[in-house]
């Protein structure tokens, strides 16, 4: 049994209905709201599995279902749904991770007064995210893209009474909007040149050869049209996926409840940018064959990704908030995915996206479990000693960490990272991104070792951590399932049997190659991981922190660097000093102009207007206004007079009926006689 593309809309429709029900539920309908949300998500997950079965039956085909939304002057604006392996894998991942996080939330948000609203927002988010995944139209994708942005805004600011949460929500929304402006421009340009925004449309979609050929013409500046549009669309991905230079919102977004961070700001929404670029990959790659262009779109993607991967890993080394560390780690890992896209291996990017969704959701939920148990203590300096108190959280968190670090062989993250490194190594344009990625591997191992050592080992360094105990099954079961996923997911795309890769590329046969082929690179990365873990252990593990206020060992050795990294390399200050100040300057200029220049002009005009108004009032009141009033009055009077004619006497009515008939006949005859 499979789900055909005509019914694909059901996958986002179920959580959307759940969101609607949640919105209409009274505030005390907690069980109902959560139950409906989880039930709808489970339904979506089942449907997504059926869709996956359908997509795998014929992996090379892009099944589409397109329909007219409405007619405009130039033709119909069309939307549609798309079913291919990329959509199907994403759909299964999003719905599955969402389902687990919904279940986790029933435990995590238990004491919150706005519990039912939380599930309403979560369902809205899941609906928009799944809609984004199944869209076959850039416009529909954009609509859902904005909707996930809205849901993200609502959920980051869920505890809006905290000023920091409200500010973070605003920052996230505005920063991503900057990228979305580029996306929108690209979308409009594409509609203008191609007249369609459908991905696949039986040969007429813009990702199909005919359109790609016509998009390969050069602009006066030397870029191909496809690269220009692609880079504009990439702006949207930069904003949404927290890429340099728009990465600043993502760490602040950790002000939201932790399940939100896990779902939106680790597993799904931030990966939407990667998914978008993978989806429009034929467009991004259309300029690869052109030799004369100054820069290929994908080259930009690769360098942005490499910079982000390195930058995120660097900053993560000097953060103290458990969620911020994970947030910068997310920024870094998304950089890896972008790097993979840029160097031409979108399959490796999607593989890493899927594995990352599992282990990062696991890490965030583990962090949530820790925070919930430790009475909302998030500073790793004040935690510690949790390995004995929270065994399940500790073991699953360790599995997630090893997957993120890339501990060899048994963890999915190792294989997906290996695929990216392999692709970056084989890139002809430049080896710089490859070296950045290698450095990132060391740093990732380092900061994660620090995180583990500070959080779970040693002795509790605060009351909250001291009284922590393991959470209930609603929170631990999702952790266990996600941990299993973080391990088992490696099986779908081993180098010896790259099943996922073959299906994504639309192949029926799976061509593996022996492990010995990439053994050198693999060995190098294993050595680098060991180096990172060793350095982290030497600094943080051997001599554990005695109390919360003891200085950081790294800060003691490299105070300048550590301070710079702890301040996130000053990006926020830089933006505040440049963009923020420019904005403020423009605002004060506008105020000045408004107050003195325009206001003066307006006062002058107003004086003139008053004069002319005085002159014309007399005439106006007597003719125009008076006429209108008189008309209105007459209308109302006519109505009253007429309603007096409605006497209520039945015989009068019947007489009117007959009279009306005669009148009609007379009029018709008169009209005919003329």
């Amino acid at each position, binding site marked *: 049994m499979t789900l055909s593309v005509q019914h694909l809309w059901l996958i986002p429709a179920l959580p959307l209905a759940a969101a609607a029900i949640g919105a209409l539920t009274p505030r005390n309908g907690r069980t109902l709201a959560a139950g409906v949300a989880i039930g709808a998500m489970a339904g979506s997950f089942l449907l997504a599995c059926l869709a996956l079965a359908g997509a795998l039956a014929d992996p090379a085909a892009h099944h589409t279902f397109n329909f*007219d939304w*409405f*007619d405009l002057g130039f033709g119909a604006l069309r939307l549609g749904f798309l079913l291919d392996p990329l959509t199907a894998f994403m759909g299964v991942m999003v719905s599955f991770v969402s389902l687990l996080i919904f279940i986790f939330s029933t435990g995590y948000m238990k004491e919150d007064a706005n519990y039912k609203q939380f599930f309403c927002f979560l369902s809205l988010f899941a609906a928009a995210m799944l809609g984004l995944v199944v869209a076959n139209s850039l416009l529909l994708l954009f609509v859902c893209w904005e909707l996930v942005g809205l849901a993200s805004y609502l959920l980051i600011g869920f505890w809006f009474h905290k000023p920091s949460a409200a500010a973070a929500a605003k920052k996230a929304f505005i920063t991503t909007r900057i990228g979305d402006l580029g996306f929108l421009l690209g979308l409009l340009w594409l509609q203008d040149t191609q007249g369609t925004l459908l991905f696949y449309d039986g040969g007429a979609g813009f990702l199909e050869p005919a359109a790609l050929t016509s998009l390969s013409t050069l602009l006066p500046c030397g870029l191909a049209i496809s690269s220009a549009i692609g880079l504009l669309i990439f702006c949207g991905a930069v904003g949404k996926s927290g890429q340099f230079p728009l990465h600043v919102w993502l760490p602040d977004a950790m002000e939201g409840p932790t399940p939100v961070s896990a779902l939106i700001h680790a597993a799904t929404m931030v990966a939407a940018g990667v998914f978008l670029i993978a989806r429009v990959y034929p467009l991004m790659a259309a300029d690869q064959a052109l030799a004369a262009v100054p820069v290929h779109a994908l080259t930009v993607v690769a360098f942005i990704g490499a910079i982000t991967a390195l930058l995120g890993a660097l900053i993560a080394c000097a953060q103290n908030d458990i969620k911020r560390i994970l947030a910068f780690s997310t920024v870094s890992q998304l950089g890896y995915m972008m790097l993979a896209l840029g160097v031409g291996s979108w399959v490796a990017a999607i593989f890493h996206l899927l594995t990352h969704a599992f282990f990062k959701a696991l890490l965030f939920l583990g962090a949530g479990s820790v925070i919930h148990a430790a009475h909302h203590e998030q500073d790793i300096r004040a935690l510690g000693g949790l390995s004995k108190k929270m065994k399940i959280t500790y073991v699953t968190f360790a599995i997630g960490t090893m997957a993120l670090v890339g501990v060899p062989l048994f963890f999915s993250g190792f294989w997906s990272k290996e695929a990216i490194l392999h692709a970056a190594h084989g890139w002809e344009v430049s080896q710089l991104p490859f070296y950045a990625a290698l450095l990132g591997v060391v740093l990732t191992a380092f900061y994660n070792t620090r995180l583990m050592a500070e959080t779970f080992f040693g002795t509790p360094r605060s009351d909250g951590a001291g009284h922590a105990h393991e959470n209930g099954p609603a929170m631990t079961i999702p952790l266990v399932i996600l941990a299993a996923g973080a391990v088992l997911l490696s099986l779908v795309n081993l180098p010896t049997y790259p099943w996922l890769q073959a299906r994504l590329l639309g192949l029926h046969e799976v061509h593996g190659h022996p492990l010995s082929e990439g053994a050198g690179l693999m060995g190098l990365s294993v050595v680098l991981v060991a180096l990172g873990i060793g350095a982290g252990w030497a600094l943080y593990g051997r001599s554990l922190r005695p109390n919360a206020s003891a200085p950081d060992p790294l800060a003691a050795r490299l105070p300048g660097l550590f301070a710079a990294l702890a301040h996130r390399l000053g990006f926020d200050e830089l933006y505040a000093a440049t963009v923020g100040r420019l904005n403020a300057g423009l605002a004060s200029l506008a105020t000045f102009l408004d107050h003195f220049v325009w206001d003066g002009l307006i006062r002058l005009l107003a004086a003139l207007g008053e004069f002319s108004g005085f002159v014309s009032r007399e005439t106006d009141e007597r003719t125009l206004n008076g006429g209108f009033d008189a008309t209105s009055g007459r*209308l*109302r009077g*006519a*109505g*009253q007079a*007429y*309603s007096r004619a*409605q006497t*209520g006497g*039945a015989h*009068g*009515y*019947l007489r*009117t*009926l*007959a*009279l*009306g*008939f005669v*009148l*009609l*006949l007379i*009029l*018709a*005859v008169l*009209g*005919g006689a*003329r």
Partner: protein
Amino acid sequence: MNADYAGLFNALQPEAHLVLGALLVLGFDMVWARHRPANRHHVALALGLLALALAGWKAAATGNTGLVFGGVLLIDALTVATRVGVITLAGLALCLLPPPSRLRHPAEFVALVLFATTGFTLMAAANQLLIVFLAVELASLSLYVLTGFDKTRPESAEAALKYFLFGGMAAAFLLFGFSLLYGLTGSLDLGTIASQLALQRLSPLLLVALGMVLVAFGFKAAAAPFHLWAPDVYQGAPAPAAALIASASKLAGLVVFTRLLWPGLGSAVGTIAHTPVTLGWGPVVALIAGASLLLGNLGALAQSNVRRLLAYSAIAHAGALLLGVIAAGRLGVAPLYYYAATYGLATVGAFGVLAVLEATGPAQKLTDLAGLHRRSPLLAGCLAVFVLSLAGIPPLAGFFGKFAVFAAVLRLGGLSGPAGWLALLAIALSAVALYYYLLILKQALVAKPAADAAPVKVPLPAACALLISAALLVILGVFPSLILGLF
């Protein structure tokens, strides 16, 4: 005539379900439910809705089989859409069943609604004068009884009597007109009538016949000057009956008369777009439309009773709908159907709000609505959707209905012909109409509630009906092609 009974049975499946459903409701009530007063209402309502649902499903499942039983019935896209439309509207109206204190015989009421609906669906399929007459009469007779069903209020009986007298006269006119048509053409079949009339010149006799048919048509559509019954009936009838008269009855009536006028009497249309005027029913319908627009909108301005206001608004809408009839011949029935169906939804919804309010206290005067947003936000919100749709505010369906009909009329011949100035008149009067619609909303959304006003509890069936109507109005407003694309 070749007697294709299987085809006839197939075509009449919705009607069969409705009639069987009505008998079942009555029988069940007699044997079982009357001894269980607590459940009597629910059982009757549930069975009635079940019958409507089955009939609606059958109606939607019937394909476009074309002429049935030698041309007695015609099943085409319009028939299917109209049947589904009237059954939906009847179902929504049925959900407004008055509480047991106001309605002592629920089963009879439900059965009569089902019989009336049978008449409506038959009107949608009728393609022969006798069937037209039978269907119209079946629907009308059921509606007379429904109007007088509320024995606790003398207004109800008065309204029923007036409606019956007026309707009886109109039926007499209709039958007389039909007999003249039969005499002129020698056939009852619309196709044969059309081909016969195409050969004839416009005789005075035909003119009289046309006039008589139009009188009945005007009565059914509540168009001026045959509208006088409407305010009294809307005021006096129980809410579901009034809702049915204002929505399903109007939709079915317009469809059957459009069938009669265009495919049947299309050759006698006369001028509709250009001067000089030549004789036919076209100019007459245009006159009726103009008169309805004027009298309806002006009459509504002076009303202080909500139901009478809705009645005058119905008369005004009848005028706009007649414009759709005029345009239907050349540009298709899609705008007319869309307008009539969405108008029906909005009216059923408005009467639904009044029905819920009536169960808690008086709901006749405009001031009885005061402070509705405090007493029941659900009712106030739904009422806002219905009234704004009636007023034609985008993105609600009422706007697109008006837009589609006016655009169709203007495409007939621009502004130069009679249809052009009618469209202009209709647009100008829409501005007038906004005034009295906003009077309703001002009371419901702005005014403070009376000191003794209690919160309103909305019964579940009524809440469902209101929410469905409001949702449909929004959805059809956003996706007008869901209906416009059917034809």
